[in-house]
């Protein structure tokens, strides 16, 4: 079976004989999509906050992360309920497992966005950092990757999921070069050590978000094909050479 046929098979459902079961599954994927939307805004806002040195926006990211945590708990409850009462099978089973795991990944991404927002306040205490624009570029790539995986999940698109996985290598490369550049700054001028370290944390958090995005893409692959897709992480670990 080609991947296109698979996709058609998985997205082109008949309705459930027990309608309420179908509705609960729909509701679950809607919830994950909504949570994804919120997390995407948080990542893009925390980046904005750092770029524009906007402390209030950073605070609002930290505040909104609580909502993300609550959404994860709600999805978890819904998943437990589905398993207990409906015993989902086949695509329904895969979808339910994926919703559970994706919500967990999204919660982690929310935490990382909150972390970046916290760096913002500290960064604002020193002069604007020259590396801000490279971090911005990396951030934009991470946001577009997240957008792509969420889209892959909602639309059931295997191509988008795979394309998002590829983006991760690019993100890792940017992180590696950022790391080296920041080291150079710190060696050249000891006064930049504090803001450079903060910048490095921001970049590291973005790189981690990229990893979580990739995990989501892998889950989308699993939902659509039923096959496991675990990449050999050791090959692309950005900290390997640093």
């Amino acid at each position, binding site marked *: *079976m080609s991947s296109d046929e698979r996709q058609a*098979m998985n997205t082109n*459902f*008949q*309705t*459930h*004989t*027990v309608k309420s*079961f*179908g509705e609960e599954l729909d509701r679950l994927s809607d919830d994950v999509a909504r949570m994804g939307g919120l997390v995407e805004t948080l990542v893009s806002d925390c980046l904005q906050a750092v770029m524009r040195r906007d402390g209030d926006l950073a605070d609002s990211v930290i505040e909104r992360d609580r909502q993300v945590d609550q959404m994860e708990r709600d999805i978890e409850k819904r998943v437990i309920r589905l398993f207990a009462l409906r*015993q*989902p*099978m*086949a*695509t*329904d*089973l*895969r979808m339910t497992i994926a919703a559970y795991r994706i919500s967990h990944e999204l919660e982690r991404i929310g935490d990382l966005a909150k972390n970046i927002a916290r760096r913002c306040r500290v960064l604002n205490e020193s002069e604007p950092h020259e590396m801000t624009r490279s971090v911005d570029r990396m951030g934009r790539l991470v946001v577009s990757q997240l957008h792509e995986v969420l889209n892959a999940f909602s639309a059931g698109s295997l191509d988008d999921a795979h394309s998002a996985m590829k983006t991760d290598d690019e993100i890792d490369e940017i992180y590696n070069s950022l790391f080296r550049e920041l080291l150079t700054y710190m060696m050249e001028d000891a006064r930049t050590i504090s803001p450079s370290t903060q910048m490095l944390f921001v970049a590291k958090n973005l790189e981690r978000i990229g990893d979580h995005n990739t995990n989501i893409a892998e889950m989308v692959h699993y939902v659509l*094909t*039923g*096959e496991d897709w675990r990449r050999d992480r050791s090959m692309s670990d950005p900290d390997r050479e640093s």
Partner: protein
Amino acid sequence: MSTVYHDTQIENAKVALDAVGVTYGSKTAVSGVSLRIPDRSVTAFIGPSGCGKSTVLRTINRMNDTIDIARVSGSVKIDGEEINSKSVDPVVLRARVGMVFQKPNPFPKSIYDNIAYGPRIHGLASGKSELDAIVETSLKKAGLWNEVADRLDQPGTSLSGGQQQRLVIARAIAVSPEVILMDEPCSALDPIATAKIEELIDELRENYCIIIVTHSMAQAARVSQMTAFFHLGDLVEYGPTEAIFTNPRDQRTQDYITGRFG
């Protein structure tokens, strides 16, 4: 219509069906069913009512012979031997291939005689003590011995539904079958009695080739290693149970096991 076979090597095939078809008069019940069923494992036949799963099950011990208008085509082999050939005595075949039905059907005899009947007519025991031993081991294998050891002379029909079902399984085991066919063996039982039968099936799997027809998908998932999905007289998909329930290949299998059948 072609069957989707999962990529699984079945090295120890006990039962092999090749292009099996069954017609009742002018009506085709099943056609073109080919599958190899492994020994010492449980294979589940699932599918909606009227899909032909019981009909296929009944070709394996020639139960369709008892229906005048039924015609069976294709080949059914057990250990490589064609069972539909004239040289095979259906009575002997049915001792090798035991069967358990939906409703427990103990003989209107004592518990002891229910078990001893088969070994007696097949001449499997040379004396009373040997027969006693067969009765005891059969009841033990069926997990019923402890419940009935002190009342073997009571009628089999005096037992509860779940006990009666284990009694008829013991009766099937008593003639040392190689294959045990079960046609919805738990559909008349409560959940506890069902769990006991499922546990029993899991134990029997070590020594027998078991084929079970079930309407409960959860049961198929729990007890079987291989699953065959039938629909409208076709074998749609056949593969390892885990694969069928997590990643079915055919849309019809998918729709059926997720409860979306139109």
